[in-house]
């Protein structure tokens, strides 16, 4: 038992996933953990597990171990084997398994978990290092009979009864389709930035912001930790708690858009930022939020929106406005807020790097539309600063009029007028 005194919290059973066992061995282990091990561990699905147990004598043990270490590198791993196995970072239990040794191994695993994430870890935003590539996210496989979705909703959300266990997760998920913002609606949507006159070119060039000084930076960092640890985490702040569900790539926050927009725009000073902390969320807590289904958000759509409200037409300071940026690939616009000219900007930028001002000039649009799109896409890791010398050596091509431009514009106008009509009908 490593001499640890177990608190009541420590007595909560560990969620355990089993690998490399046939059906009979699996059942035996389930009963063994419940019975002789007095419920120190409980067998759950892979997604909900806190620790993994592998029968190291099974034929594909090596593959299983490599797979687990790749998918959940921070999850403690217990190996059961007839022969002694000495692999760094794993806990060995000799077969046939003795209860004392098994309980000891589970407690050691629990100790590793507690060391891994302090009960109240301070969150340091690291927005300057917002990723170049998007992180690989384990996605769930929601199964739902989808009905005709309401158009013109704000963003991806989940609906219906939601349980945290993986089986129930599969039954949920119904997106709401994208919101397409016009220039007119944009300013009402993003709000106003104090101290920047966007009609003054000089001020526009300096209209940057530091994501890490805002809620965005903390949320971004917390999501990154949750994904790396593969654990449900709660971001505590002076405002409302926010929970991150990395398996389903979801965020839970009990706040409406108006409240979130207001908080997103507040600069968090160093002192107030110290109140931010990350804590692990146990299954009981996460189940208690099931009743507020409307508070679940797709993480990408949530962060995209948060970036828009933080940017308010400014660009992230980490990007050099004088150097070109590239777009890795198109954003999934049908599930995001489509800011004015966003599709146009993506279509231009996907063809090659350009500076932010060049994009605005080439498309004859206001720079803040470029900045807000770039901010959101950068937060999702879709935009990066072009580093190749060649990208800065040759001026990007002008946007030329084509023979079919008139026709294409008419089609565009037809699609957008229908959108407006639908918007009005839905109001």
């Amino acid at each position, binding site marked *: 038992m490593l001499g640890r005194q177990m608190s009541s919290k420590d007595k909560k059973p560990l969620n355990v996933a089993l690998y490399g066992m046939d059906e009979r061995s699996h059942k035996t282990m389930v009963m063994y953990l419940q019975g002789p091990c007095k419920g120190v561990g409980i067998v759950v699905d892979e997604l909900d597990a806190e620790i993994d147990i592998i029968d190291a004598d099974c034929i594909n043990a090596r593959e299983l171990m490599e797979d687990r270490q790749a998918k959940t590198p921070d999850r403690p791993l217990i190996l059961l084997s007839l022969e002694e196995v000495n692999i760094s970072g794993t806990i060995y239990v000799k077969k046939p398994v003795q209860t004392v040794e098994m309980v000891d191994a589970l407690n050691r695993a629990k100790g590793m978990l507690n060391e891994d994430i302090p009960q109240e870890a301070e969150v340091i935003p690291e927005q300057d290092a917002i990723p170049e590539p998007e992180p690989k996210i384990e996605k769930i496989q929601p199964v739902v009979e989808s009905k005709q979705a309401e158009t013109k909703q704000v963003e991806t959300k989940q609906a219906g009864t939601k349980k945290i266990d993986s089986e129930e997760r599969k039954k949920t998920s119904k997106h709401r389709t994208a919101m397409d913002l016009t220039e007119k609606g944009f300013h009402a949507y993003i709000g106003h930035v104090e101290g920047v006159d966007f009609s003054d070119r000089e001020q526009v060039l300096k209209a940057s912001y530091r994501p890490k000084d805002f809620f965005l930076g903390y949320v971004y960092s917390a999501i990154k930790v949750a994904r790396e640890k593969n654990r449900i985490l709660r971001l505590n702040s002076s405002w409302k708690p926010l929970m991150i569900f990395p398996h389903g790539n979801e965020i839970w926050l009990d706040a409406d858009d108006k409240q979130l927009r207001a908080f997103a725009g507040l600069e968090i000073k160093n002192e107030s930022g110290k109140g931010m902390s990350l804590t692990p969320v146990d299954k009981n807590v996460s189940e208690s939020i099931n009743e507020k289904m409307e508070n679940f958000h797709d993480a990408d759509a949530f962060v995209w929106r948060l970036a828009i409200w933080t940017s308010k037409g400014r660009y992230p300071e980490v990007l050099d406005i004088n150097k070109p940026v590239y777009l890795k690939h198109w954003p*999934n616009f049908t599930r995001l807020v489509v800011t004015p000219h966003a599709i146009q900007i993506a279509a231009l930028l996907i063809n090659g790097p350009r500076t932010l001002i060049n994009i605005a000039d080439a498309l004859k649009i206001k720079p803040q539309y470029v900045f807000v799109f770039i901010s959101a896409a950068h937060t999702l890791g879709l935009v990066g600063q072009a580093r190749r010398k060649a990208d800065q050596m040759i001026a990007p091509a002008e946007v030329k009029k084509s023979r079919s431009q008139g026709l294409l514009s008419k089609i565009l106008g037809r699609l957008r007028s229908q959108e407006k009509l639908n918007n009005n009908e839905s109001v």
Partner: protein
Amino acid sequence: MSQYKIIFTGPVGAGKTTAIQSISDIPPVKTDAAASDMTKTRKSATTVAMDYGVMNLDDGEKIHLYGTPGQERFDFMWDILTVGGIGLILLLDNTRADPFQDMKFFLDSFGDFISDTSVAIGVTQMDLSSKPTIADYHMQLEGFGLKPAVFSVDARVENDVSLLVQALLFSLNPGLEDE
């Protein structure tokens, strides 16, 4: 008057007929028949010739929306259908056994047309099967040297289909302005 067309293609059950219906100004002309071959495992009726819809423009011009039959044995029609086409909407069903294979097949089959025009890809049924992800599709597309728009799409939702077509139009010319 010229025949301007947008072509919708993709495998059986990907939502071509529904997508055309979502943005057409007329009830789409469907040429469905009861499925008799392996198609019947996925849907009871399937398109055996083509689907047809129309978008009416302000000046009386029409954009014809053609959906290709999803079954490969009708691929002789595809070359004929694409003549005069503005661009290609490729719809892929994420619940099929190998959506990447489907994507490769259609990108290869319409390769000449795509290189002359452009393509935008809509992935349907992502509510039922969230993998492959949209990011996975982009990774696969790197192998084709293409960077098209790839959106998750509910073919019944007009806004989804509209955004996909808008992405196609801007891919053809990012300098477009509404008229």
